């Protein structure tokens, strides 16, 4: 953002989430990703004449769970509508969606950034509704011959469309919202949120509120599509805000002066480009789908969903801070890794009684190892009790932190316990009397260092520690430092 500009970015998001059901929204075909084209289809999802949809109860249950987690109002009556338009990957000529009576509306999601990139905010959810996905068109241009192929495997996959109010004020906030939403959906287990496979798709609406001497002016709203990662969303929005400001400076065009524009994000060129479309606005001729009966939602169903929510990320963050004495940033990092990692952390922290140490090890060692190995916590070779055993040894001063990291590495490689790894590395508890004697020897051999220490030049102790470690790898450098200083001060050499 330019330093001297007085404008605010106004962002609203539309997120399409594929729900993790075994079968499609209105038929029993599998929703598995990556099957050979057109192998997961039936008369219903490919819209053959005479075929009829039947609602998948599980899809509705997952949608309900999400809506409750997003603190939405859940009307007792909701229905299905047809959105009519022609496209080759839409075999019925209409999409079954929800129009004026969505299954949920008026919710919200709290977002914050532990590093303070944006202020804490509640992003309001306008609505969340269920609909069926379309198929995929693949345009193949070989030897000048344009050839389009259609894969209907995806047709009919349940999608939850979540629409926010225009509540975000920066690209960072938009990214923050998406990250928090994805985390929530992952905690709920309703979607795998894999953007590469299209399980989560984002469109953004953005415009500016520019401060002028005559008051605040809104620029025309632009919809941005084709953003394939959260980073792309952030960059596209940043680009678009700046572009709109330049257009404003050049043309002075306000909202309402031109029709709403759709632009696509070009990730390679890092720019948004206007998408060509005809002048006429689309009319989807929504009307209630006569093939489906309306859905009635009872208070008991909503309560059941509430019971099934489990502890959600926001609540979990504050509990980790209060239960384990860790800071907000650490709680955020841990919670963002998912429910399983948090459970692992809690097991270690409870067993060792030292939440901070457990948190540091999770962030510095466990998570790094997972990243290096592209592994998830469920597959991690070091179990929570095993890590707790190691950290307890550190706590009891049986081993120093640096050595503990060697042990940890060994535990991963050998898939063994802390004690086995320590034994394998020849780590034994060091006798205090022996250590003091060793320190005396070293000090006697280094009178210059002793003199320095007496003058308060603590730097000199480093070399002494090094020598000690060479003689016995198991000694604890922290403890040995204390011994050196005590001996030098007391001149009991």
């Amino acid at each position, binding site marked *: 953002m330019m330093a001297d500009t007085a404008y605010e970015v106004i962002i609203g998001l539309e997120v399409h989430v594929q729900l993790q059901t075994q079968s499609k929204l209105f038929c029993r075909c599998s929703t598995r990703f990556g099957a050979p084209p057109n192998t997961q289809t039936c008369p219903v999802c490919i*819209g053959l*004449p005479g075929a*009829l949809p039947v609602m998948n109860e599980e899809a509705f249950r997952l949608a309900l769970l999400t809506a409750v987690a997003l603190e939405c109002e859940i009307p007792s009556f909701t229905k299905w509508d047809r959105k009519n338009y022609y496209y080759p990957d839409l075999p019925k000529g209409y999409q079954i969606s929800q129009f004026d009576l969505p299954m949920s509306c008026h919710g919200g999601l709290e977002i914050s950034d532990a590093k303070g990139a944006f202020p804490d905010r509640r992003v309001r959810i306008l609505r969340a509704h269920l609909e069926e996905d379309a198929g995929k068109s693949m345009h193949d241009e070989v030897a000048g011959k344009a050839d389009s192929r259609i894969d209907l495997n995806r047709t009919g996959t349940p999608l939850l469309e979540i629409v926010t109010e225009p509540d975000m004020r920066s690209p960072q906030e938009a990214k923050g919202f998406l990250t928090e939403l994805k985390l929530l959906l992952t905690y709920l287990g309703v979607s795998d949120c894999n953007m590469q496979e299209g399980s989560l798709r984002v469109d953004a609406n953005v415009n500016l509120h520019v401060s002028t001497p005559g008051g605040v002016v809104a620029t025309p709203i632009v919809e941005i599509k084709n953003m394939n990662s959260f980073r792309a969303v952030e960059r596209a929005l940043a680009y678009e805000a700046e572009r709109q400001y330049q257009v404003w400076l050049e043309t002075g065009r306000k909202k309402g002066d031109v029709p709403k524009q759709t632009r696509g994000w070009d990730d390679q060129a890092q720019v948004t480009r206007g998408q060509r479309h005809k002048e006429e606005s689309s009319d989807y001729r929504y009307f209630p789908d*006569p093939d489906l009966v309306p859905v009635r939602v009872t208070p008991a169903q909503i309560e059941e969903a509430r019971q099934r929510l489990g502890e959600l990320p926001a609540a979990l963050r504050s509990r980790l801070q209060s239960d384990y004495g860790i800071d907000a940033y650490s709680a955020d990092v841990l919670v963002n890794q998912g429910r399983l990692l948090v459970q692992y952390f809690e097991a270690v922290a409870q067993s060792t009684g030292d939440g901070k140490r457990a948190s540091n090890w999770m962030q510095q060692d466990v998570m790094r190892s997972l990243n290096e190995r592209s592994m998830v916590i469920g597959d991690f070779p070091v179990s929570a009790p095993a890590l707790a055993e190691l950290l307890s040894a550190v706590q009891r001063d049986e081993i120093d932190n640096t050595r503990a990291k060697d042990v940890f590495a060994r535990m991963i490689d050998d898939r063994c316990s802390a004690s086995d790894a320590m034994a394998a590395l020849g780590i034994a508890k060091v006798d205090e009397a022996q250590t003091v004697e060793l320190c005396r020897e070293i000090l006697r051999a280094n009178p210059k260092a002793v003199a320095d220490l007496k003058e308060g030049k603590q730097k000199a102790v480093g070399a002494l520690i090094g020598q000690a470690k060479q003689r016995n790898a198991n000694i604890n450098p922290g403890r040995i430092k204390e011994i050196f200083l005590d001996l030098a001060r007391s001149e009991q050499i």
Partner: protein
Amino acid sequence: MSLIKASATDLLGYLQSGQVSAVELLKQYLDRIETHDGSIHAYLDVAREAALERAESIDRRRSRGERLGALAGLPVAVKDVLCTAGWATTCGSRMLQNYCPPYDATVVRRLLDADAVLVGKTNMDEFAMGGSTENSAFGVTRNPWDLTRTPGGSSGGAAACVAAGMAPLSVGSDTGGSIRQPAAYCGVVGLKPSYGRVSRYGLVAFASSLDQVGPLAATAEDTALLLEVLAGHDPRDSTSAKVPVPDYLLASRQPLGALRIGLVREHFGAGLDSEVDAAVREAVDWFRDEGAEVKEISLPHSRYAISTYYIIAPSEASSNLARYDGVHYGYRTDERAMLGELQESRQRLLQEGDNAGAENLDGTLVRMYRKTRAEAFGPEVKRRIMLGTYALSAGYYDAYYLKALKVRRLIRQDFDAAFNEVDVIMGPTTPTPPFRLGEMIDDPLKMYLQDLYTVSANLTGICAMSLPCGQTGAGLPIGLQIHAPAFHEHRLLQAARAFQQGTDWHIRRPDLC
């Protein structure tokens, strides 16, 4: 022994007792088709070989003493709007001329499970839109009583084949009268079940909230027999009702008792042919003589029924028929010709210096859609798609579709109130006897008014049937329509069967030479 005039229930007895085999019976019908369908054209396709094989297998199973289904060995004709696996299902449209569904409609499955012999697919107005079969892409069906006249529609083939003795039982579909009107015109019985009574799975949709599959036959008992096989809940159709299916044949044979009959004041007004009027009143008198109480009732919103119907049905149709776009199955325009045409238009515009015009030409996809649909749909289907598209468009939705839904509710309330006073409502099925082919083809509005008395049952979801109750001076059949509350088909069948016990209109057959 000629069995052509025997009722299906009698035929079932002959088959069970071994007086006739399924093959012998089928052959009589096939011969009859051979002789008469050239002039009537009730069938779009007759599955001669497959039907014979099936009849043979049923005979074999019977001879082995196997337990057989409720229609074992009876030939049944199926309207070409019902999907039959591996057997062309055209809906009377060029669009689906070569379309072979990969699955059976639920009702087709039920017929097969009942060991019926599917003899052929019957002609119809394209996508069931029309009341004369003149909208079929594959030629009209003629009325067996007078070959210059329409058999009605859209289930014209379904009614004509029963009337001409080319099938004892026939399955049709009724969206606004498409079973009852042709039944009336052809002098047979046709029943539109309550909405949700019969599965719509595999019925190619015209207007989903109005469509029902139903039976056509010569007698009330035969109709009951077939309805019992067709009816029942289907988990594949969300709108099918979980209401138990009674023994309709048994129910139809119950004594009539003290029936309260309502006559709709509005159904005996202007536009009603005097001969139809007289025949219907005479039939009602028969019931009165049998002890029924007859009272005049009013359905004040019935005068809006046609307008309401012709908003709702085309609206749903415009969406239901969107899938016929040439992409996945069915007809597609000649691509080479289309591309050539596009190229030509573009060059011409560019030569004329009209670059903007060239730029604005429809691309290949839109062009393919347009030409495919322009070439493969007939004028009536196009008319309704346009009507429906208009009614659902932004800015018109509230004034048309939404208002129609409200009026539909008012019409339903009229019927609810009426059924508090009477058990059944009787009246004419159609305003006139069957009209001449070609007579109304250029006057769609007049054609729509033929549905005046029938659309209400579809709009309200109640059941209704038509049965023969007289003839005009020229010997054309006249139909009596009976309405009953939803899921009271047994009451219709009971009244109709009682009437047929006391009269002989249902026994009369056209004189086919």
